[in-house]
């Protein structure tokens, strides 16, 4: 379980996160929703230790990993990397690299958790060629390849930052299909998106971010069952009272 | 490993290349030299350093040569830091480091007898309209106990132009006598040990001298001292007389009689007559030095008296001088040798000595005097080691005290094509 507690983040005078608390359960797909600039991806980056936060705690399976509390000393960076895979909203590999080189890089630096076979399957699934230069991939393809690099890491948790933003319809469908495959089987997934409809039927839990705090957390099926409301209905209630 | 071939090769190439460079350098060093004592007391050369330029075919490389060997300027790094404090460190013993800290002035500002060391230095404190008040800071230490005391006395107020500065320090009983050069004149300030200014003695030279100095036909200077820090009874004052006045009167003739034996007499080592390099230029350029009168200020008598006279007959060369214990010495040197005039402080008698290049073992390049010894740096002039060396003359005994040669210290230095030009030398 990833436990986010009272997370605080300031950019200069802008107070983006004012005490965000929620958890990411193993085996469930949790969607972190919110308007643009609500600090969704800041939270993901904070979990990965890519941005320092000004307060709060981030525990991954019980171990504190927030930079300002731990200083990231010793093997903590390794611990985090083996627990959580992050799929950012932009290519995280040098554009000069070829697809194949990128895979070798991952295999080289993540010997413990890189699943080559899985990576090959996904390349096939997305119809990606090994020879292509990352710099020359279309946005959609780049997003798919990002997914490959992230999901082929056998980590108990996966974070996805805006996997659908700004890419073509068919890529979006292809990516959405990933959620119903076994590649996410049993893993705790945290996904941010402002295109909730893409994943409406796919997500188990929803965390609504508003004004730097968590406005509402609910189980999507329970919500439909109990109040016969769609996630979008709830979001309307929360963001346009 | 094979996967990292590129990196490994690059590392091997980088370290290998640079490593080989320095190993090769160690195996084929630049020419090295040392000072080899051939005669006399090695101690005279302990702190001696000769600076020279080695070349061929490379650019001239400056190096320092000592008894220990030679060191190239461009090879000196922070890892060769030499601990250096002050020429007087040895004489001050255990407390030297503490006492000498921040005292950069020359030994003339020090007084050292068995028990105490005294240091006196003037300091000017700016006052109104560009003038200044000149104080003297005096610091004393007992050499055994290391007990220190100091005080500050105002010497002159409202000084403009030339500041007074301390030329000699003496301790006489419970008084400090500071011999001070102030503008054109000399004064002795007598201080009590508690820092009171007891009195000031004006060192009064004959009026003709002062008058001559005003019209430039006479120049005064203090005689260099072989051990300025030592207790001494007198301070020497050189009065240099240039040419004669139109009216024929002799400038600076304080009516003093030339003391007995004041004229050129006496023996000289080696063959007489001026070696070519020493012949006086007849070209009228430069002031012609007729003679030098030596006066001495006597601390005990607190008065000045003439000590003797050098007749130089219109010399235009550079003359160097030194007060040893019993003599005052005047000398000059040139290409082919060195001429020395020695005056007895007892009777003013002057002896003349000539050392030819042969006697010195080479052509003189530079000289300096230290502790009654005259060091002469000689070389062959053609960059070879032939005749490159140091001859030390004992001024009191007027004899060669020691000799040393600059000798090759490795095979590279023996290569005849390699040239070594001696430039200067000094005691470190």
């Amino acid at each position, binding site marked *: 379980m990833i436990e986010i507690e009272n997370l605080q983040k300031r950019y200069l005078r802008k107070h983006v996160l004012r005490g965000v608390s929620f958890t990411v359960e193993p085996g469930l*797909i949790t969607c972190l929703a919110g308007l643009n600039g609500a600090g969704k991806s800041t939270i993901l980056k904070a979990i990965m230790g890519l941005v320092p936060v000004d307060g709060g705690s981030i525990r991954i399976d019980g171990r504190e990993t927030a930079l300002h509390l731990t200083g990231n000393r010793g093997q903590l960076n390794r611990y985090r990397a083996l627990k959580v895979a992050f799929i950012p909203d932009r290519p995280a590999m040098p554009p000069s690299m070829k697809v194949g080189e990128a895979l070798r890089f991952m295999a080289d630096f993540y010997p413990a958790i890189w699943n080559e076979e899985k990576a090959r399957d996904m390349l096939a699934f997305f119809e990606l060629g090994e020879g292509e230069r990352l710099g020359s991939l279309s946005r959609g393809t780049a997003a798919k390849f990002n997914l490959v690099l992230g999901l082929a890491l056998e980590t108990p948790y996966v974070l996805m930052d805006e996997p659908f933003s700004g890419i073509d319809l068919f890529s979006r469908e292809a990516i959405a*299909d990933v959620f*119903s*495959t076994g590649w996410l*089987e049993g893993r705790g997934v945290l996904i941010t998106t402002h295109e909730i409809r893409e994943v*409406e039927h*796919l997500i188990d839990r929803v965390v609504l971010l508003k004004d730097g705090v968590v406005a509402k957390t609910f189980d999507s*099926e329970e919500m439909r069952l109990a109040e016969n409301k769609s996630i979008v209905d709830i979001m309307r209630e929360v963001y346009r009272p | 490993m094979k996967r990292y071939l590129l990196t490994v090769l690059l590392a091997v190439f980088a370290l290998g290349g640079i490593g080989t460079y320095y190993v090769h350098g160690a195996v084929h060093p630049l020419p090295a030299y040392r000072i080899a004592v051939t005669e006399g007391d090695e101690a005279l050369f302990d702190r001696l350093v000769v600076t020279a330029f080695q070349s061929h075919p490379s650019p001239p490389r400056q190096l320092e040569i000592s008894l220990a060997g030679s060191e190239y300027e461009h090879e000196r790094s922070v890892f060769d830091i030499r601990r250096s404090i002050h020429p007087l460190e040895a004489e001050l013993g255990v407390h030297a480091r503490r006492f000498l800290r921040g005292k950069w002035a020359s030994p003339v500002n020090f007084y050292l007898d068995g028990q105490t060391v005294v240091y006196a230095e003037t300091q000017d404190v700016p006052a109104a309209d560009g003038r200044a008040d000149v104080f003297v800071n005096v610091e004393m230490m007992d050499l055994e106990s290391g007990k220190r005391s100091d005080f500050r006395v105002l010497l002159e107020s409202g000084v403009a132009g030339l500041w007074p500065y301390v030329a000699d320090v003496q301790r006489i009983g419970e008084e400090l006598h500071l011999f001070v050069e102030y503008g054109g004149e000399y004064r002795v300030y007598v201080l009590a040990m508690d820092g009171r200014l007891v009195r000031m003695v004006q060192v009064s030279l004959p009026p003709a001298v002062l008058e001559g100095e005003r019209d430039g036909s006479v120049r005064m200077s203090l005689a260099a001292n072989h051990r300025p820090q030592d207790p001494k009874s007198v301070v020497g004052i050189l009065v240099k007389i240039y040419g004669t006045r139109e009216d024929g009167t002799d400038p600076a003739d304080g009516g003093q009689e030339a003391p007995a034996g004041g004229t050129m007499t006496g023996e000289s080592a080696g063959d007489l007559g001026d070696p070519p390099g020493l012949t006086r230029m007849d070209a009228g350029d430069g002031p012609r030095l007729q003679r030098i009168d030596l006066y001495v200020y006597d601390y005990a008598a607190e008065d000045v008296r003439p000590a003797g006279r050098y007749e130089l007959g219109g010399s235009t060369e550079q003359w160097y001088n030194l007060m040893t214990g019993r003599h005052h010495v005047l000398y000059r040197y040139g290409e082919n040798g060195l001429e020395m005039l020695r005056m007895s402080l007892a009777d003013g008698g002057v002896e003349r000595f000539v050392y030819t290049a042969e006697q010195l073992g080479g052509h003189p390049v530079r000289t300096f005097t230290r502790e009654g010894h005259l060091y002469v740096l000689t070389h062959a002039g053609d960059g070879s080691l032939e005749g490159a060396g140091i001859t030390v003359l004992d001024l009191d005994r007027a004899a060669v005290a020691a000799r040393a040669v600059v000798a090759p210290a490795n095979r590279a230095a023996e290569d005849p094509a390699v040239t070594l030009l001696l430039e200067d030398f000094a005691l470190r």
Partner: protein
Amino acid sequence: MQPDEGFTFEFNSREPVYLQVVRHFKVWIATGRLKAGQTIPSRRELAVLAKINPNTAQRAYREMEEQRLIVTEGNSPSRITGDERVLRSVRSELLEEAVDRFLELIRPIDVSTDELVALVRQKHAARNGGNSGHD
């Protein structure tokens, strides 16, 4: 059981997805598309087929097992129940649901039962091409 055989899922976003899955199965059973005892996809296959989260598929199957629509012996694949009573009840349940909704829709219109029945008979006959079904 593949989409090309007409097994396609469509969901609205207000009802729980797992219940919508269950209804799809009921419809296929009632219409005989799914035969008694026929094996059905594993829950992972279902997730891919329906493009839903495996957790939801899991939940749908649990629901169907509770309603005894499907049976799973040991670790052999789940299959449609052979129990006739259950199957019939599915049919009637769907019919009743449909009729209830129909009545709900026409309640505002003031119409007598006979008129209604007549109309239903006529329309139903027209659809089934003449041969009026005599129940």
